């Protein structure tokens, strides 16, 4: 089944800090006119999130009939490696570059260099501040954090009794983490939600499990645990072990197969879906459009919607998650 | 300013305490210009500590040092070197990765402007070695030198510094007669030019040749300072040990009909170019030779410690050519390495743990699954400690904190855990005092008279001559002569030291 038209949200004017979102239906090209060579760079491919993006990119490339070469830097501390990989990829000949950036500012210079060669650069998922970007396919993690926050704030508006939330935004220093943190904090402001000191930590299950366990220990009155998908996944067992089911609810601020499964089983309460598969698809389509000189929506992302037990039956998983058993595709 | 009348070196009331050990107790030492002053004493008497204080390694707990009448206080070796004190330490101070000439000039490089002056250093090193008549390629890395060659470099290093005071801590420990003679010639020359020399050695027979005065230390105290001329060896030994000694070397009974337990045939390995020999039960087989003559390496090759290029080795009638070190040890061969620090002992472990290690293959010590019986192993190690004469209190101390003599006893002790048929002892008394030496000789006698085969490899000629029933003289990787009984004389041995390839096998 085709994925389009897809509910998306276009920012206008594009790339502007004060741009306003407009609802649109995104429709991609039917086929590319040439087998364009695309270069795709990811921060890493160690979790289901980027695997989902990879799935979208790879599928869309196949559908349009373009070639892609994907590189991944191995982690969020590897900015230098990402730069080298992008340079290598460009050196090996490419028509367009799609980047999931490690740093919002750190790639600006390379992107400038690439743009000078008239190679379009597309900002995928993470956000880049460079003015030389040709298009952006992303949702803001600020919004993701905010959606999660407002989901809670709606449940506990100001005036109701105070509830305590343990907040686990992810690895310190990563751009998406800081953005989600800000969005979440802004959204719960003025509600009955009291957020504890954010607990940063790598998105490994064992690290997050420990953080949550210690937080529950420090503040037994925690009502919600919110954080990365890994946090929510890792906390399921803890809730079970401590017999806190129903007393502490879990939220993630983005979607993974584990979270999806958790919501289905009622172990996780809710998580916003950013349709990372679609973000990947749109980026490829944008690249093809730019290369072929066709009209392009310059700044767009799938519409964010919160998934919880109420609507999970209606969401087709292939748009928001990589399919089961999908293996990463590098080219 | 100091006056010419003041002694060159004056150490007054020097005491040094290490935690738990009073290594020196109010020692006075005076060295005049042009004097060769010998320090003599048992292991652990405090000789090295005393000269370490003079060369700035340690600071004395109390006492004063005057150089030419000026009181000095050294904070480092560098300070002492600046005051004209050059030292050959007992522990070598060569950097293995650097070539010889850079080692010589280490810490006092010749400079041309801001850059080091490599050519001048090379030339200087070559010249010095030529003067000293030491034959070493100065561009070789120090790690490729034998112990003896390293010692030569150490000595050259001390001479290079143009020191006013030259300290030599057991410089001849691994030198053979020839190099020792050359060294003595140099010491004489240096003394004649007004350098004061402090010389530490356990080899009494050397003193008459070079010493002016001898200071005897015992248990950290100065016992006496006597003129070398007119003090006999027995007197010195008595001063050192506090008891009279009439015989250093024991008479070891010889079993002439001893069976052949081990044979080496046509051995070729790096440094050995074909040699045959037999080892017999109840006999002490000596191996003498110059540095690099192959006297050690033939045995190291036989033990599987260096690659054997050709040859055949049999043990108790079985061909064991190419067997691993471990297999040989299990078959009843004991090898005592010449360098106890690098090859012999676990320096941070206790004496007990070191000895216990050699017991763990015994079925009565380590049972099924290697489960150790602590009581049994404790009793056995205690017995061995008694046998080799290690004090009870020393058994549980880390080996690194024991005196050289006690360390050597621990090393010997590792040979008594199991029944062995062949004892190969490489430099069994290196750097060991007279008292310990006699105890170790007694052990060798006991082993041999119990019907075991003993091989003694030694650079100490009197030692190897007096202990051996049969003596092999090595020269240039071959066996130059086999002497036995009355034929073992200094003259005979020395004659073959420089032999060309006379016994091509």
């Amino acid at each position, binding site marked *: 089944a085709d994925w389009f038209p897809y509910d998306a949200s276009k920012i206008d004017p594009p790339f502007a800090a004060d741009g306003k979102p407009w609802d649109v239906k995104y429709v991609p090209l039917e086929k590319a006119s040439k087998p364009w060579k695309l270069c795709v760079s990811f921060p*890493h*491919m160690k979790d289901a999130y980027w695997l989902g993006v990879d799935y979208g990119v790879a599928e869309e490339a196949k559908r349009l009939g373009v070639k892609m070469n994907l590189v991944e830097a191995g982690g969020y501390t590897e900015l230098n490696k990402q730069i080298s990989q992008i340079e290598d990829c460009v050196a090996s000949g490419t028509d367009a570059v799609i980047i999931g950036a490690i740093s919002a500012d750190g790639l600006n210079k390379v992107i400038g260099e690439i743009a000078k060669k008239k190679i379009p650069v597309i900002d995928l998922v993470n956000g880049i501040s460079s003015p030389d970007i040709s298009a952006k396919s992303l949702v803001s993690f600020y919004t993701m954090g905010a959606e999660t926050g407002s989901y809670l704030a709606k449940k506990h508006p100001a005036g109701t009794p105070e509830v305590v939330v343990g907040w686990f935004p992810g690895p310190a220093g990563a751009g998406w983490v800081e953005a989600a943190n800000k969005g979440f904090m802004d959204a719960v402001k003025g509600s009955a939600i009291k957020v504890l*000191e954010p607990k940063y930590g790598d998105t490994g299950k*064992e690290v997050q499990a420990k953080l949550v366990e*210690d937080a529950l*220990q420090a503040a037994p009155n925690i009502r919600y645990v919110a954080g990365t998908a890994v946090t929510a996944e890792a906390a399921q067992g803890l809730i079970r*072990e401590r017999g806190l089911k129903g007393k502490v609810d879990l939220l993630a601020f983005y979607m993974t197969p584990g979270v999806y499964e958790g919501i289905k089983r009622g172990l996780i309460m809710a998580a916003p879906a950013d349709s990372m598969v679609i973000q990947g698809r749109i980026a490829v389509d944008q690249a093809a459009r730019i290369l072929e000189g066709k009209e392009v929506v310059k700044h767009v992302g799938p519409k964010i919607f919160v998934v919880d037990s109420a609507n999970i039956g209606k969401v087709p998983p292939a748009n928001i998650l990589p399919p089961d058993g999908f293996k990463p595709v590098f080219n | 300013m100091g006056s010419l009348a003041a002694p060159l070196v004056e150490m007054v009331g020097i005491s040094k305490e290490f935690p738990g050990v009073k290594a020196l107790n109010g020692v006075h030492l005076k060295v005049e210009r042009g004097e060769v002053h010998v320090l003599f004493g048992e292991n652990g008497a405090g000789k090295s500590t005393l000269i370490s204080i003079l060369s700035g390694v340690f600071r004395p707990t109390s006492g004063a040092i005057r150089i030419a009448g000026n009181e000095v206080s050294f904070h480092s070796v560098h300070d002492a070197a600046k005051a004209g004190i050059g030292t050959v330490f007992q522990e070598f101070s060569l950097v293995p990765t650097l070539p010889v000439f850079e080692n010589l000039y280490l810490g006092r490089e010749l400079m041309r402007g801001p850059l080091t002056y490599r050519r001048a250093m090379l030339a200087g090193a070559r010249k010095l070695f030529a003067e000293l008549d030491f034959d070493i390629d100065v561009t070789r890395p120090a790690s490729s030198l034998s112990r003896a060659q390293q010692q030569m470099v150490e000595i050259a290093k001390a001479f290079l510094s143009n020191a006013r005071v030259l300290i030599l801590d057991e410089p001849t420990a691994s030198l053979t007669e020839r190099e020792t003679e050359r060294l003595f010639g140099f010491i004489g020359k240096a003394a004649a030019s007004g350098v004061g020399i402090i010389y530490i050695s356990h080899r009494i027979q050397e003193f008459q040749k070079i010493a002016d005065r001898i200071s005897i230390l015992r248990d950290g105290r100065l016992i006496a300072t006597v003129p070398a001329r007119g003090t006999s060896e027995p007197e010195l030994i008595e001063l050192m040990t506090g008891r009279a000694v009439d015989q250093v070397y024991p008479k070891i009974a010889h079993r002439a009909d001893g069976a052949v337990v081990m044979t080496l045939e046509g051995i070729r390995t790096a440094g050995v170019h074909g040699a045959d020999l037999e080892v017999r039960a109840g006999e002490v087989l000596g191996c003498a030779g110059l540095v690099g003559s192959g006297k050690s390496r033939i045995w190291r090759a036989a033990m599987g410690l260096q690659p054997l290029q050709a040859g055949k080795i049999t043990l108790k009638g079985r061909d064991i050519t190419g067997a691993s070190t471990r297999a040989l*040890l299990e078959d009843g061969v004991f090898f005592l390495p010449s360098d106890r620090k690098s090859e012999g002992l676990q*320096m941070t472990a206790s004496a007990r743990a070191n000895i216990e290690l050699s017991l763990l293959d015994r079925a009565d010590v*380590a049972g099924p699954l290697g489960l150790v019986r602590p009581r049994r192993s404790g009793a056995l190690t205690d017995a061995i400690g008694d046998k080799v004469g290690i004090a009870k209190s020393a058994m549980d101390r880390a080996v690194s904190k024991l005196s050289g003599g006690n360390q050597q006893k621990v090393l010997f002790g590792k040979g008594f855990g199991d029944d062995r048929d062949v004892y190969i002892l490489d430099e069994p008394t290196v750097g060991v005092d007279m008292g310990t030496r006699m105890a170790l000789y007694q052990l060798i006698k006991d082993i041999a008279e119990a019907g075991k085969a003993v091989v003694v490899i030694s650079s100490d000629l009197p030692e190897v001559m007096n202990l051996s029933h049969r003596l092999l003289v090595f020269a240039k990787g071959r066996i130059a002569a086999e002497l036995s009984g009355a034929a073992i004389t200094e003259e005979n041995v020395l004659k073959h030291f420089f032999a060309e390839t006379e016994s091509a096998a």
Partner: protein
Amino acid sequence: MPTTTIAEDRSALRRANAVLSGLRAVFLRVGVLPFFLVATLIAFSLVSKEFLALQNLTNVARQSVYLILVSLGQMLALVTGGFDLSVGTAIALTSVVSALAMVTLSHLLPPDMLWLVIVLGCCAGLAAALVIGSINGLGIAVFGVSPFIMTLGVQSVGAGIALFLTGGVPVSGVPYEFGDVLGFGRVLDIPVPVLVAIVAASTIWLVMNRIRLGKHIQAVGGNVKAARLSGVNTRKVLFIAYIMCALLASVAGLLLTARVGSGETNLGGTIALESIAACVIAGVSLHGGIGRVENVVLGGFFIVLLQNGMNIAQIGSYMQMVLLGSLLVLAVILDQVRYRLLVGER
């Protein structure tokens, strides 16, 4: 009455002196770790009353199991005079392989053979670690490669393979019973992981203190040449040490897999360095030959306790990095001081 005051002062002073010299003696005997432990306990129990709660301490005990297991293995490598930087990879590979095996087997075998599935899965995980340990051992013992490089290389290779097997996605579908027992189970109200750690620590204690192998491991680390000349099969000993190290890490990997309920490639990311830190704080010498099992267990526990305390005291994660790093350095400096006090000057 000035005299009495002076007398009181004196006796107070004397008592203070006695306490100080007592502390000094303890420090010299057992090192810095007990002081750190006590200081941590006092400091954090002042900050938060939750800290000393029995439930929290049980928590810490359970959380520290994984680090302790790995540190025990790391200790073996350190005592031989080496390192093992590949313990993290051993954990990840164990997790992935055992989870994959369980998932595959549970499709093949009937549901009533669940326990067989779990046991076989665990064996598969252990086997993967065995391979890692053997490769390390082979390189280090036979080819004489420096442990640092060997285990670094294996770490990279192993991580690549683990990622390749899973594509970076957690392997889900691991039987619940596996997690219920090994991850969350309790026997006599003691968490199963803690029991496993107790068994492992006792075994390693026995090996190091009562078994020939342990003495040989110490001998190889103390002076490998001397060990060889004492008839120790040094290659075999080194080989076994690295295999044991990998297997201990693998056990930790199984427990972690049970805990998180899926096969994960990103388990154990920083555990290699953490376990070395735990060993060093526990007085294991990086030069080999020296290390005590009891202390290593305490060392692992201490690090986790500290992290727990800092989390409970709401210390920001940046600050935690600073504190942990400083403490590590301080521990080693104090250990050095202790060594000097013991041995004397220089």
